[in-house]
């Protein structure tokens, strides 16, 4: 149905085992990358949105009990999670009048939750960087291997005509194209998510002391 000399998939079907292996690796990279991109995009979007709404509520209402109740509505937001951890630690204090001890324990709980949240935010994102950096080289490897095989075939057939050389090179170049197709979205996604995560981390760093102060000043 497909002319193997013209169609891309016809060329792929004629490719050698190494090139096919490279293509399968790149395909799996691409699938995982897109899954991470979709997963992280929805996760970070929700986190940013819920954090923003929660901050508005936090500064409108000074009652930590109400804020805590409100925070439980936000399952994905980083700031609501951190506030909840601080509040729980505050409620667990034996002696709430010992301000120094209370501040230390609440700050420690908030910091621990912030670290956990940072880790959650960054999970899987480095894989995008890995794909972005390595996929072109993997594709290049497939291309080099394919061209090497192609030249070997040329030496066997003792013909250097375009008809003999072009299909092999075309087939080999598919690997590079696949590598770039996998790498480009991964790099774009990595840069976008890095920027979004840095925004959330900055919010966490900025508002964590606010939460501790609000809990300590609870009447």
């Amino acid at each position: 149905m497909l002319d193997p000399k013209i169609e891309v998939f016809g060329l792929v079907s004629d490719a050698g085992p190494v090139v096919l292996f490279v293509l399968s690796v790149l395909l799996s990279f691409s699938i995982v990358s897109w899954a991470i991109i979709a997963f992280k995009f929805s996760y970070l979007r929700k986190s940013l949105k819920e954090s923003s709404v929660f901050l508005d509520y936090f500064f409108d209402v000074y009652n930590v009990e109400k804020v805590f109740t409100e925070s439980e509505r936000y399952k994905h937001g980083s700031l609501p999670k951190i506030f909840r951890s601080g509040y729980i630690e505050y409620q667990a204090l034996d002696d709430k009048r010992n301000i120094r001890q209370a501040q230390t324990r609440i700050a420690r709980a908030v910091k621990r939750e912030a670290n956990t949240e940072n880790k959650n935010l960054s999970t899987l994102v480095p894989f995008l960087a890995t794909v972005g950096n390595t996929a072109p080289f993997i594709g290049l490897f497939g291309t080099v291997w394919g061209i090497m095989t192609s030249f070997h075939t040329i030496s066997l057939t003792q013909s250097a005509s375009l008809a003999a050389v072009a299909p092999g090179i075309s087939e080999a170049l598919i690997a590079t194209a696949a590598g770039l197709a996998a790498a480009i979205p991964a790099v774009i996604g990595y840069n976008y998510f890095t920027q979004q995560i840095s925004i959330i981390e900055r919010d966490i760093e900025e508002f964590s002391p606010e939460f501790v102060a609000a809990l300590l000043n609870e009447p």
Partner: protein
Amino acid sequence: MKKFYIWLVVAAATHAIALCAAVFFQIWNAGNIVKPKIVSVTLVSLPAPAGGTQELSDGEGDAEEIPVQVISPPTPSPSVEQKVQKPVVKEPQQKPPQLLSPKIVVEKAPASQPADNQLQKALERMKQLVDQKTPPPQPSSVSTLNSALDKLQQKVKSAGAGNGGGAGGRGVGGGGTSKSYKAAVASIIQQNWEFSGTLLKNSGGTAVYVRINILPDGTISQIIFDRRAVSEYLNNSVKKAIEKSSPLPPLPKEEGSRDVWIGFVFSPEGIER
């Protein structure tokens, strides 16, 4: 992480759909592929030089010998028609015995100007005759030109057979055999001819007149350029094609144990298709 696995499945499905879509698009688009400009090369066999051709034909069927045989009609540009049509209709129909005369002319072509003139006149006559009898072929219709040329060749064949029978009763078989063998040889050479017209664009590509000597076992023993093209690239491509085609199929048994000469004209045509 459960959501991530869901997204993983979604991504895999999306990739599968994208690949399927690409395959279907290629199938759907298969008929609309814009082929790059290609060079349609005309390969026309000329009457063999006097000695060789006579060897082929003196046994039987001089009248049927077709001086010029179209192997693969190119895009029908005027020059192609000239080369193709010259001897096919006119010469054989009117004066079958003179069919051999172009062979002699061709052999002397590189050296003598009158031979060129005679060839050009014959080509002009053939062109006019074909223009009258057949509708003008479409520029891209190679098949139309093929069929027209086949008809012309059959006419020549039948005319030659009739004349030959009247003159001496010699049969059609000899000429037919050599013609089919020449057609096969020309087809083989054309298949082995690798040629790009883009390299010839600025060199004023002309025709290359070549004759080859074929031993009974099909080996090409000698290649003689009766006329070279301006472009050495074209000359070399012709030489390589002929060398690559050796050995050819063994000569027909009717030819005995003699070697034969066959002439060809390699001409680039239809560069701007």
